[in-house]
């Protein structure tokens, strides 16, 4: 028996023993969303969540550094902002205009505070159009907002001006796409409630487009149905395929992908800017913007970039994590696997572009896991404002730092920064092709144990990659060392030519016949050069001693040798990303050796 604290999350019950030296954690998974609702009625306050007591034994400084890892100001800078068209707006300082938005927002330069505030009054929850992604190359941008409060006929001059400002911020295009990610029927129904969508007649030069992604309730039910299929003990062919199809899950995934593809194409091929919204602009809009950004921007396909992407499009723009993942006792109808769907879209993309992503499947699964686990503070609260009020950054740890620390586990061995797939835009067919979207075994079947461990091709890749890297490091060390030896030699040669007398070494055997380098190399070739046995080592040693003594004053032979070495070092290792050496012991060795030589 052990004394401890029980933590409840949406998917896990975590039991942490209080014994100070062990703090053993026991995680029990409740991989069924319905069953947990009953479980965590008692959790009413944020303070009871696990992350507030989770302590990875890091000091304050390390914690703060962890939170600094992902920096959105840096990210906007990386996009090339601010510039002639876009500026950082302080209109939302202290969350004055919109409490679910971040304070740091980019808007068109021509959009005055008056226009922004006016536009915000015409948008659901005052989520006015703001920049999500900016494409340096052609000035096209992706902006996001909530639905306009247009009802059946209402208009708002400032909002119209706002859209014009966005369009004009892209000199390369004379129109702006407005993408409503809802099914048309839903959008029309919203008009009855005084909300709705943009009327093309009122906004000049916009192209309006519906992309039917269903709402959070449909998605929640869909996941529920799919999980039921996953829980079947031994499904028949019909049970499984029919169940999967009836759940509609893959169809929804595809709808999100299609929206992302549409936007990516508009930006990259038509050079047009896009404004995306759904109802409130924090679920479907987040999904679609991040998928499109991922397709467009190679940076987001790296480990760090992906963290930035989630930080930007999800966390800072107020995806309601607390509500969607039921971290606290809330309305069960608010729960929905919105970011799960985004992560799955990424996985589907990884399946189709195996070389394009720096991270692997495990990375996605661990992010998903921690969105539910509440072990880290990143995915707490519904908005930036709430997080600031709760002082999340001072009281919890950042998942990104944790993932970054263990990044070796998350690297995709197939990733190559120089690969054509990795550069530029990922091109996917817009035409429907359902068969490309697969059931994500790794996520939804991860608790099913097969008869024996599956073989993974990736493990092989990782192994060879590591081996190659190690060899590359050895090679570099050796080349470096040779270079140094060479320098030393040149110096000595100079010295020697002054002295005009080769130095003599005593204490070594005097019998020698390997006077010329040619003889010597011929001699060495007969050795099994890669034998690890002690005997060879010894003989190599003896040989060296022989040669050390067998001084060769022939300078021309020496220079031949040098040029040969130079040739070798010219062929610098190509195409390898060199992760900082874990095996620095060897490097140190070689340095020492060089020192000794010198």
């Amino acid at each position, binding site marked *: 028996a052990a004394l401890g604290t029980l933590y409840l999350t949406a998917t896990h019950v975590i039991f942490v023993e209080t014994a100070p030296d062990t703090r053993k954690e026991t995680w029990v998974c409740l991989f069924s969303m319905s069953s947990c609702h009953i479980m965590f009625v008692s959790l009413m306050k944020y303070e009871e969540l696990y992350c507030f007591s989770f302590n990875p034994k890091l000091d304050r400084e390390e914690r703060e550094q962890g939170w600094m890892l992902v920096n959105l100001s840096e990210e906007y800078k990386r996009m090339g902002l601010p510039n002639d068209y876009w500026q950082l707006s302080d209109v939302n300082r202290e969350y004055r205009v919109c409490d679910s938005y971040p304070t740091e927002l980019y808007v068109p330069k021509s959009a005055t505070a008056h226009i922004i505030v006016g536009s915000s009054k015409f948008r659901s929850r005052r989520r006015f159009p703001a920049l999500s992604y900016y494409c340096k190359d052609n000035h096209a941008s992706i902006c996001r907002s909530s639905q306009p409060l247009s009802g059946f006929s209402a208009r708002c001059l400032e909002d119209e001006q706002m859209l014009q400002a966005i369009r004009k911020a892209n000199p390369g295009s004379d129109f702006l796409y407005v993408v409503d990610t809802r099914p048309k029927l839903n959008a029309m129904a919203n008009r009855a409630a005084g909300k709705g969508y943009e009327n093309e007649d009122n906004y000049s030069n916009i192209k309006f487009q519906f992309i039917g992604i269903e709402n959070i309730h449909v998605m929640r039910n869909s996941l529920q149905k799919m999980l039921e299929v996953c829980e079947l003990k031994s499904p028949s*062919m019909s049970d499984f395929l029919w169940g999967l199809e009836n759940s509609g899950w893959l169809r929804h995934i595809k709808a999100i992908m299609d929206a992302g593809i549409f936007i990516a194409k508009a930006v990259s091929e038509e050079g047009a800017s896009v404004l995306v919204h759904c109802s409130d602009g924090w679920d479907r809009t987040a999904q679609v913007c991040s998928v499109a950004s991922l397709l467009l921007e190679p940076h987001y396909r790296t480990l760090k970039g992906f963290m930035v992407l989630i930080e930007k499009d999800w966390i800072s723009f107020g995806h309601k994590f607390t509500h969607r993942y039921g971290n606290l006792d809330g309305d069960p109808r608010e729960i929905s696997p919105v970011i799960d769907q985004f992560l799955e879209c990424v996985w589907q993309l990884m399946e189709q572009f195996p070389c394009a992503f720096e991270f692997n499947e495990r990375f996605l699964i661990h992010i998903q896991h921690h969105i539910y686990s509440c072990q880290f503070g990143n995915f707490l609260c519904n908005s930036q404002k709430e997080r600031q009020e709760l002082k999340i950054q001072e009281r919890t740890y950042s998942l990104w730092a944790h993932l970054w620390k263990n990044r070796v586990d998350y690297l995709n061995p197939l990733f190559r920064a120089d690969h054509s797939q990795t550069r530029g835009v990922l091109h996917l*067919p817009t035409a429907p*092709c359902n068969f490309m979207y697969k059931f994500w075994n790794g996520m939804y079947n991860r608790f*099913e144990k097969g008869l024996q461990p599956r073989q993974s*091709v990736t493990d092989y890749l990782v192994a060879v990659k590591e081996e190659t890297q190690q060899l590359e490091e050895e090679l570099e060390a050796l080349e470096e060392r040779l270079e140094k030896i060479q320098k*030393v030699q040149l110096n000595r040669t100079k010295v020697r030519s002054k002295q005009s007398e080769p130095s003599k070494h005593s204490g070594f055997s005097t019998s020698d016949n390997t006077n010329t380098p040619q003889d010597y190399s011929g001699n060495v070739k007969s050795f099994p050069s890669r034998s690890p046995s002690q005997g060879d080592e010894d003989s190599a040693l003896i040989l060296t001693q022989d040669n*050390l003594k067998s001084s060769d004053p022939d300078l021309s032979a020496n220079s031949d040798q040098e040029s040969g070495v130079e040739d070798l070092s010219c062929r610098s290792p190509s195409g390898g990303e060199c992760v900082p050496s874990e095996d620095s012991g060897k490097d140190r060795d070689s340095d020492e*050796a060089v020192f000794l030589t010198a």
Partner: protein
Amino acid sequence: MASAPTSKYNSHSLENESIKRGTFFILIDKEVIYICPFNGPIKGRVYITNYRLYLRSLETDSALILDVPLGVISRIEKMGGATSRGENSYGLDITCKDLRNLRFALKQEGHSRRDMFEILTRYAFPLAHSLPIFAFLNEEKFNVDGWTVYNPVEEYRRQGLPNHHWRITFINKCYKLCDTYPALLVVPYRASDEDLRRVATFRSRNRIPVLSWIHPENKTVIVRCSQPLVGMSGKRNKEDERYLDVIRETNRQVNKLTIYDARPNVNAVANKATGGGYESDDVYHNAELFFLDIHNIHVMRESLKKVKDIVYPNVEESHWLSSLESTHWLEHIKLVLTGAIQVADRVSSGKSSVVVHCSDGWDRTAQLTSLAMLMLDSFYRSIEGFEILVQKEWISFGHKFASRIGHGDKNHADADRSPIFLQFIDCVWQMSKQFPTAFEFNERFLITILDHLYSCRFGTFLYNCESAREKQKVTERTVSLWSLINSNKDKFKNPFYTKEINRVLYPVASMRHLELWVNYYIRWNPRIKQQQPNPVEQRYIELLALRDEYIKRLDELQLANSAKLSDPSASPSSPSQMMPHVQTHF
């Protein structure tokens, strides 16, 4: 009409196929419109030789090339008549055995369609026109002879046969005992030739139980045969009962023999009406019988037809998964794999020896024995081993390739046709997906085998049985597919292959782990960009090469380094510290 290929490009690509000049001749060389189901009509130049139909796009924005061996064609129809109006409504419609259709629009004047139709019909269906199948005209030369790959005596010797309990018999040397079996058979030592003859009278088509594979350690065996001729009256045959008991007794520690009847129970019962049936418990006391519920060739044919309906030309979109389900194709794959797993498990655990049969023992039985052997014996997972497996369990034991594929036969609706072998290859692919390091060959190897299953370029898959092949002197007069493959093995190698002796593979035949072989069934769809070479394989190969290069350069540097150390100016005090360092890298 015969003329040398006109365009340089064309002749080049034909040469690429390394078919020697003189063995083919151009029969038709004309402009047609290929009605591409994906990109619409494309004007192209078509060449028809006695081996293939080759079309090259004449439009600048399309690099389309069609290259269709005539053997692949199952049906040629004329579409549109003299009165038909509308663009491209007059021409030919060609149905292929490899899940695609081709449609050509031709000009109405000048009998151009009649010419093309007649030529195609003649050379796609040579049997109906008393012409030889192309394989007999093919004079390709390879530097290895694929016909030598399989030598039954050697293969049985590899398995450790003959031994105390099993003997090799030549009783079927002239195919008198059973005309669809190979000449060389392995039977129980204690069964006399007379016994064999008596048993043969009680087995459908005389296909007596003979050994397919023996476990190297526990000596349990996989035996294959056809159904017993029990009939409605429940006939018995003492020799057959005794014979199965002798098989059981070859392995003394077990007291039961397991019989797997591949068919569904009802089918087996229904077969009694036509004189067939199954081994009943009351008669065969020491045997237990299980049905594996695998459906017959007609069900499989219809299932594949449905697969084609949902993938060609357009992939069914709105209800992809339920459409896929309605084909039942994966369900059949699952049943075949599950059956094979059961066979393999019985044998590898040493629980009992196994007898496998279906009705005639040349379709489902071949699938089950060969898949079980693939799971049990790592030898068959190498390229040559797999060739031997196919050669042995399928070709020599009389899977009716001629009837199932319909080589050179114009009767496209023949009820004997069925994709049994394709289903087997699909199962192999499913296994290779689950065990990516267990097979020496890659996906391309499997697809190449399937392509030449239809192409008629090689003699490998011609005819129904060994006796017919011998009569036609196939090994003397045709080239083996294995010649092509073995002379260029690197193309077909799986870089992840790691040889593991004695490892039994148990694939998971659960729905969640089986998938449609998109790279085969949907390969004509331009959306399936087969990433050739596979990026994962490619990356691995590159890394291996890089590793080898580093090792080589390290060696070179090592030499240079040692040479440097030989310089007198180098400090003499430290060699002992330096050299071990260099050596410990390895």
